[in-house]
C-alpha cells in the first residue's frame, strides 16, 4: 500500500482532477453563499459550514477556465489547510480512486495553469490531474481586490 495513494476526484469544465483524499474534510452539495465585494473573482463567497465560516474558491476561475453555466450549481470539496477549511467549487464529484505512484508523471509543459498541478496520473481510461491544494488556495488570490 505504501506506493499507492487515494485521490478524491472531481470535474472542472470536463477536466478530471484529484486531490489527496486525506486532505479532504468533506464533500457537500451546493451551499448558499455570501459574496465578498472587492475580492478577487476566484473567491465565490463565504459559506456557513455548521457554524464555521469557510471561503469558497471557484476552481474554474482559479484554473483560468470559462465560467460555469448559470443553471449548473457547483459542488463543494472542503479541504483542510493550515489555516482552517477552504471549499473548492467544482462542477461534479467523481469517485475516490487509488493510484499507484508508478503511474504518476510530471506535468506536461503545455498545460494551462500548470503551476497548480502537482502531477498527472495515467488511469486506465483517462488522465487524472493532481491538484496542488496548497498552491490552489494560496498566493495569487490573497487579498487582490479587483476594483483597485
Amino acid at each position, binding site marked *: 500500500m505504501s506506493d499507492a495513494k487515494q485521490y478524491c476526484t472531481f470535474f472542472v469544465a470536463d477536466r478530471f482532477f484529484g486531490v489527496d483524499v486525506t486532505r479532504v474534510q468533506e464533500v457537500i452539495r451546493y451551499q*448558499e453563499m*455570501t459574496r465578498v*465585494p472587492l475580492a478577487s473573482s476566484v473567491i465565490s463567497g*463565504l459559506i*456557513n459550514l455548521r457554524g464555521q*465560516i469557510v*471561503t469558497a474558491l471557484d476552481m474554474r476561475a482559479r484554473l483560468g477556465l470559462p465560467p460555469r453555466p448559470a443553471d449548473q450549481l457547483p459542488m463543494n470539496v472542503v479541504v483542510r489547510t493550515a*489555516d*482552517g477549511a477552504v471549499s473548492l467549487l467544482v462542477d461534479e464529484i467523481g469517485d475516490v480512486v487509488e493510484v499507484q505512484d508508478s503511474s504518476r508523471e510530471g506535468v506536461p509543459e503545455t498545460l494551462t495553469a500548470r503551476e497548480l498541478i502537482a502531477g498527472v496520473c495515467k488511469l486506465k481510461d483517462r488522465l487524472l490531474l493532481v491538484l496542488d491544494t496548497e498552491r490552489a488556495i494560496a498566493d495569487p488570490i490573497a487579498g487582490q481586490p479587483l476594483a483597485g
Partner: protein
Amino acid sequence: MVAGDEEIFREFLVESTEGLDQLDRDFVALESNPGASERIGAIFRAIHSIKGTSGFLGLPKLEGLAHAGENVLSKLRDGDLSLTPAITSTLLSMVDGVRRLLKCVEATSNEGNEDFSQIIAELAKVTAPQVPQIGQVLISAGAVEPKELESALEQQKSEPNRKIGDILVARGSVKPQAIVEALHAQVEARAGISDTTIRVDVGLLDKLMNLVGELVLARNQILQLASQSKEPSFLGTSQRLNLLTTELQEGVMKTRMQPIGNVWSKFPRVVRDLAMTLGKQVRLEMIGEETDLDRTIIEAIKDPLTHIVRNSVDHGIEAPEVRLSHGKAATGRLLLRAYHEGGQVNIEISDDGGGIDPEKIRQKGIARGLITAERAARMGDRESLNLIFAPGFSTAEKVTSVSGRGVGMDVVKTNVEKIGGTVDVQSKAGHGTTLKIKIPLTLAIIPALVVTSHTERFAIPQVNLLELVRLEGEQLRAIEHIHGAPVYRLRGSILPLVYLNRTLGFPESESSDPKAVNIVVLQADDRQFGLVVDGVSDTEEIVVKPLGKELKGLSAFAGATIMGDGKVALILDVLGIAQRANVISEVRDRNMGEDAKKASAVEEEKRAVLLFRVREEGRMAIPLSMVARLEEFPRERLERASGRHVVQYRGKILPLIDLCKVIDGGSRDEHGPLQVVVYSEQGRSVGLVVDRILDIVEETIPAEHREARDGVLGSAVIAGKVTDLLDVHGVIRSTDPHFFERTTAA
C-alpha cells in the same frame, strides 16, 4: 538583600518593634474591655503594616504569620467574631512569634528555621466558620421539633451506622424533601470553609467562550424561526432558550474577566524604580483596580499601559526642584483610574507634571518632517497634541534610556486600536497630562448594526456608530457636493458621505434617484463620516469570526458572522472603509488623528477659484475644478430652443443659464459679447452667462459658509473682498431639474 534597601529595612525593624510593644498593652486593655473597637482597629493596622512591609522586603514567613493574624483581627474588627480569652491567647502567641522573627531577622538578616505553622493553623481555626450540623439546619428551617431531634439522636446511639436524616424520615418526623434542602444548606455552609476558587485552564475557558458563541448563533436562528411560527409551546421554549443563553453568555464572559489591578500591580515597583533612577519623587495612586476586563484585552493593553506609565514618569513629572520652583509639591502624582462606561472600559493615566506644550509639539513635528510649517500654523492645540502618536516622534529634550526615543506612542495607539479602542490625550501646560484609553469589554461577541447594501447584509460594530440620519424627499437636497465629493451638513459641521455601494464596487442601479437616503454616522479614528446604505435593519449581538487568510488583504472587512437565518454576513471595518473611500487619506494622517472637520480635506486646502462678476456689484466665485472652459460668444449666435437660450458649440447645442436672472431675477443690458463659463459633466455641458471674468486665485475657502440663499452656497472673503460662492449644482438644477439625473444615468 539590595544594598539600597538597607535603610528601609532598619526603619522597618525599629517601627515594628515599637508597634509590638504597643500591641501588648492594647491586648491587655482589650481583655478588660472587649468592646473597645478602636483598640482592635489599632492592632489590626499595626499587624497589617507589618504584613505589608514584610511582603515588600521579601520576608515570606513573617508575612504569612502576620497575614493569618490579620485575618482574625479583621473579623474581630468587623464584628464577625467576638473576642474570647482563647482567641486572645492565640493572637498573643502570634504577636510573640512576630517578635521572635523580627529579632532573628535583626540578628542574622534572615528568618531562621522556626516553624510557625502551628500558630497559623490555630489562627485559621479561629476564623473558619463552623459547619452546622444537619439537625441544627433542620431546626432552624423549622422542619423538625427540637424534641423530635433529641429522641432521634438517642436512637442513633444504638444504631451508629444510620444517618440522622434516615432516622428522622423513618420516624416520620420530617419529609424527605426537607432533608434534601437541609443537606444543600449544609453544603453551602461548608463551601465557605474550603477555598471557593479553583484553577481552570485558560484554554478551556476560551473553548467555552467559543461554544457559547456558537450557542448564541444557534439561539439567533431559533428566534428567527420562532418569529415565523405559531406554535405557542415552541415560542415559549425559544424565549426561555433566549434568556438562558444570554445568562450563560454573561456567565462565561465573567469567567474570562480579570480585574485590571492584575496589570497594575506591577506599576508601583516600575514607578518607584524609575523615579529613583531619574531622581524624581512620584506618588502612584490607583482607582478602580477591581474593574473587570476580558483577559485577551488585559493581555493586549499590558504593554501599552506600561509604556504610558513610564512615559508619564519620564517625560511628564518634573524633577523635584523644578516642581518646587513652579510652586508645586516636590512629589509628583501619577493617577491610574479605570471605570466602566457605556459597555466600554475607560482607563485614564494622568500626571500633574509639566504638561505638553502644543507649540513645542508643532515645532518638533516640523523638525521631524511630520507636518509642514504651513500646516502647523493651521493646527489647533488639540490636534497638535495628537502628534505625539505619530510614528517617530519624541518630545523629551534629552533622550533617556528609560522611555527610549518616544517611538512607543504610535505603537501604543496601534495596539489599542487593534482591539477596537481609542486613545486620546489632553494636556494643560504646567498642570499635567491625561491619557484616556477607551476599550471594549470583550472582543468575541459584539453588538452590531445590520445594514443592507445592494441586497447584501453587512454588520457595523456598534462602537463605531454615532447616529442614524434618514433624509427623505426635499431633505435630499441637503446633500451637497464639494469638489465632486458628497457631503451633508450635520448640525453645522460638514460630514463627508461615503456610498457603501460605490465603495464596495457594486453596480449603481436603482440608487440614482433614491426616494430616501440612510446615513449611518460613523466614527473612524478621530473623524466622522456618513456611510450611505440602502437599508438599516436591526442591532444584533454578533459573534466575530475571522476571515480566512485568502481574504485577510481586504481591509474593508473586519471579519464575518453568521446571521439569524444561518447566512454569512461580513463585518465592516469602519477604519478600512474610511481609508478606502479616502475619508482618511493616508496612514500618516491616521496616526496624527486630525479633527473631524479636516475629514473634508478638500474644504481646508487651498483651491483655485474663478472670480467673476454678475452685474457691477455681484462678485462671485466657483471652484476652478468645476470649470470646463471659458468662452466668449458674439450675441448674434444666441438662439432659442424649447424656451431657453442656447448657442451652437463644438457641434452640439449648449444651453445657457443667465446667472443674472437666477441670482436676483433681473436681466442684463443687451450689448457686447457673452462671457460664458462652461460646466461639463459626463459629456453634457451647460454655459453660465456672467458679466465679466475677473481672475483666478488660490484661496482657502472656509468650511462654514453663511447666508446661503438661492444659487449661493454662502459668502467668503476671497482675495480680500467678500465674495459669494456660486452653487453651481443648485443653479443648474433650478433651470434644468433633470440635468444630473441624466448624466448619472448616461
